[in-house]
C-alpha cells in the first residue's frame, strides 16, 4: 500500500506527483470562493465570540482545503456526516452563510432552535447530517447509511469527517470495520490536523500514519497533502468513483494543521510552540490555491478582490440579520424530543409556563424569553 503523499501543487519537500483534476474554471473558482468565505466567517465568528455576541466557536482555520476539497468531489445526492470543524461543506452545498450564523446565535430563525452549541449544524436539504460533540459517533452512522445505500442499490456514497483524535474512538474501529465487512460505499476522511485539543499526534497513535490503519479493515488507505485542495479533490474523486461501482470504502488521511485553538475556549499557546504555526502558515491552503489559479491565469487580482468583497458583504449582512432575531420561544424546548409530547412533558411545560408568567424563573442572558 502506497503511503506517498498525494500532491498536485507540490510544496517544499513534497514533489507534485498527481495531475490536476479536470475541473472547469467556474468550479475551481467556486471552490476558491467557499474557501475564502469559510476563512472570513471563521475570523468574524471568533471575534463575535470574543465580543460576547455568540457563546462559542470552533475555528477551521487552515483546514479549508481539507474539508472543502473533499466535499467538492461529491454530488448533491451523496450524504455527509461531518465533524464540528467542517463549516465549508454546508456553504459549498448551497447553504447561505446567514443560516450558519442563525445557528451560531441560537435564535428563533435557526431551524434547530438554539438547541446546540454553535457550529453543530444540521441541514437535511443538502443531506448534511446533524453534527454532535461526542467524538467519532458519526463514523459508525456513516457506515450504516452506506450499508443502506448498498441494500437499496442506490449509486450514492456516504462521506464522514473526523480528526486524528477520533481514530482512537471505538466508533472509528466499528465504522471502518462494518464498512469493510459489508463493502459499503463509504469515504472516511481523517483530517489529521496534528492536535486533539492539547494532545499531539504522537500521543494519539504509535502508527506511522493514519492511512495505514485502512489495511487492517481491508480497504485502501491514502495520504494526501491536506492543504492542497486539488490533491484532496483528486484523492476523494477516485475513492468516490470506486465506491459508486461497488468497490467499497476508502480511508483518506488529509495532512493538515489546526492553526487556531481547539475552540474559542482553548488557548493553544499553553501547550504548543507557536513556531510550528509559522511553518504551516507558509503552506496556507488558500494562498497556495490562489497562487496556482493565478499561475494558470484563472484568477486575476481584481477578480480575487471582488470575491473577497462579496464574501465580506454577505457576512456583514448575515451577522446583522442573525443579530436582529430573538431567542426561540420557551415552549419549543419541549418540541422534537419525541414525535408527540408525552403527558409528562405536557405537565412540565404547563408548570414552567405558569412559573414564567408569575416571574418565578430568572431571566436568562438573552433577557426575556417569549413563551
Amino acid at each position, binding site marked *: 500500500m502506497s503511503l506517498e503523499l498525494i500532491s498536485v501543487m507540490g510544496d517544499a519537500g513534497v514533489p507534485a506527483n498527481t495531475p490536476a483534476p479536470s475541473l472547469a474554471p467556474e468550479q475551481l473558482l467556486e471552490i476558491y470562493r467557499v474557501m475564502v468565505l469559510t476563512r472570513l466567517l471563521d475570523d468574524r465568528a471568533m471575534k463575535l465570540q470574543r465580543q460576547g455576541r455568540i457563546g462559542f466557536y470552533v475555528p477551521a482555520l487552515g483546514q479549508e482545503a481539507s474539508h472543502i476539497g473533499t466535499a467538492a468531489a461529491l454530488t448533491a445526492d451523496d450524504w455527509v456526516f461531518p465533524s464540528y470543524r467542517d463549516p465549508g461543506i454546508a456553504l459549498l452545498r448551497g447553504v447561505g452563510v446567514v443560516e450558519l450564523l442563525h445557528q451560531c446565535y441560537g435564535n428563533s430563525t435557526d431551524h434547530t432552535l438554539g*438547541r446546540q452549541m454553535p457550529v453543530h449544524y*444540521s441541514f437535511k436539504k443538502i443531506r448534511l447530517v446533524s453534527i454532535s460533540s461526542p467524538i467519532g459517533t458519526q463514523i*459508525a452512522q456513516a457506515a450504516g447509511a452506506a450499508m443502506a445505500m448498498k441494500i437499496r442499490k442506490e449509486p450514492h456514497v456516504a462521506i464522514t469527517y473526523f480528526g486524528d483524535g477520533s481514530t482512537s474512538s*471505538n466508533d472509528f474501529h*466499528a*465504522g471502518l470495520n*462494518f464498512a469493510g465487512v459489508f463493502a459499503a460505499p463509504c469515504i472516511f476522511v481523517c483530517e489529521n490536523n496534528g492536535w486533539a485539543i492539547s494532545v499531539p499526534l504522537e500521543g494519539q497513535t504509535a502508527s506511522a500514519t493514519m492511512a495505514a490503519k485502512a489495511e487492517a479493515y481491508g480497504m485502501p488507505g491514502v495520504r494526501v497533502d491536506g492543504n492542497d485542495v486539488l490533491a484532496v479533490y483528486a484523492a476523494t474523486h477516485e475513492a468516490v468513483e470506486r465506491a459508486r461501482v461497488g468497490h467499497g470504502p476508502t480511508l483518506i488521511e488529509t495532512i493538515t494543521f489546526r492553526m487556531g485553538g481547539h475552540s474559542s475556549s482553548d488557548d493553544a499557546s499553553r501547550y504548543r510552540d507557536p513556531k510550528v504555526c509559522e511553518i504551516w502558515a507558509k503552506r496556507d491552503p488558500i494562498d497556495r490555491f490562489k497562487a496556482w489559479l493565478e499561475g494558470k491565469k484563472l484568477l486575476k487580482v481584481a477578480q480575487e478582490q471582488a470575491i473577497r468583497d462579496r464574501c465580506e458583504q454577505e457576512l456583514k449582512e448575515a451577522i446583522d440579520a442573525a443579530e436582529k432575531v430573538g431567542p426561540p420561544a420557551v415552549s419549543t424546548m419541549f418540541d422534537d424530543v419525541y414525535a408527540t409530547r*408525552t403527558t409528562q412533558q405536557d405537565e412540565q411545560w404547563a408548570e414552567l409556563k405558569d412559573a414564567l408568567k408569575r416571574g418565578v424563573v430568572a431571566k436568562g442572558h438573552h433577557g426575556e424569553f417569549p413563551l
Partner: protein
Amino acid sequence: MPVMTMVEAINDALRVEMRRDPRVVLLGEDVGVKGGVFGCSAGLWKEFGGDRVMDTPLSESGIVGAAIGMALYGLVPVAEIQFSDFIYPAFDQIVSEAAKMRYRSGGEYTVPMTIRTPIGGGIRGGHYHSQSPEAYFAHTPGLKVVVPSTPSDAKGLLLASIRDPDPVLFMEPKLVYRTLKEEVPEGEHVVEIGKARVVRSGKDVTLIAWGGMVGMCEKAAAKCAEEGIDCEIIDVRTIVPLDEATILESVKKTGRAVIVYEAPKTGGFGGEISAILAEKAIEWLEAPILRVTGFDTPFPYTLESVYLPEPGRIREAVLKVVRF
C-alpha cells in the same frame, strides 16, 4: 389462535412486519444464519436474505451506530443486542445520538429504530447475562423503553415499537422467553405504547411491576388471596412513556402500593414510580410505598434465586402495607 412462547411471538412479529414493510431490516450478532442465540429471528434470514437480516461484526456500538445511519437514510432497522449486559459500548450511540437526533436537528432527522435486547435473570446467567438496566435508559429523553411481560404483549408492543417514529429500546425478559405460553393473535396485532395493563383487579393493595416480575406478582397475589388479601396488579409495559394515569387510578383505589423490580434497589425505576405516587397520591395512601427489588450488589450466579424478588418477599411486603 395459535399458542406461542414469547420467543415465538417475537419471531412472529418480526416476520409479520418484514413482510408488510420492505424497509424493515434486522442486524446484530448471530441474528442471521443462526437465527439469534435465543432463536428470536429463526428462519428470517432464509426468508428475507442477507440484505435484510444481517449478521454483523461483534461490536455493539457498531450495530447501533450503523442502525442509526440506516434509519437516517430511510430504512427501519431492528437491531439486536444479544444481552442487555453487553449494551454499554452502544450507550453513547443510544443516549447521545439516537435519542437526541430529532431534537438537535430541529425535527429534520429522525431515528425510527428499535433495539431489541434480552433483560433480567432466570437463566442462571450470572451478572453478565442477567441484569436489568432499564433505569439507565429511562433517564434519557428522546428514547422510549418498552418491557413486555407476556407473549401476546411482546408481539403487539414489538409491532408498535417498529412502527414508532422514535427510537425504542425493547427489553425482553428472559424469565418469560420460554416459560409462559399463551394464545397470540395471528397477523396484525398492535398494542399501543404508553398504556399500562391491569393484570388482576383487586381492592386492597396495588402491585406494580414489569417484565419478569409481573408473573412473580401474580404468584404472590394468588397466595395473598388465600389469606383474604385482594391484590391489584399493574403491568407497566412501557417504562417510557409511563402511563401514570392507570397507576394513580389503581393506587387511589387501594391506598397501598408495592413496586417490584429486578434491578438493584438504589436508583431503580421503581423509585421514580414511588416519587410520582408521593407527589400525586399522598392523600390516598394508607401505608408507606414499598419496593421489593434485587439488591445493591452485582447479579449473583449461584444465589440467583435469592437475589430475584420472589413471591415470598412480595407477600411479606403486601402484608406489611396491609397491616400498617
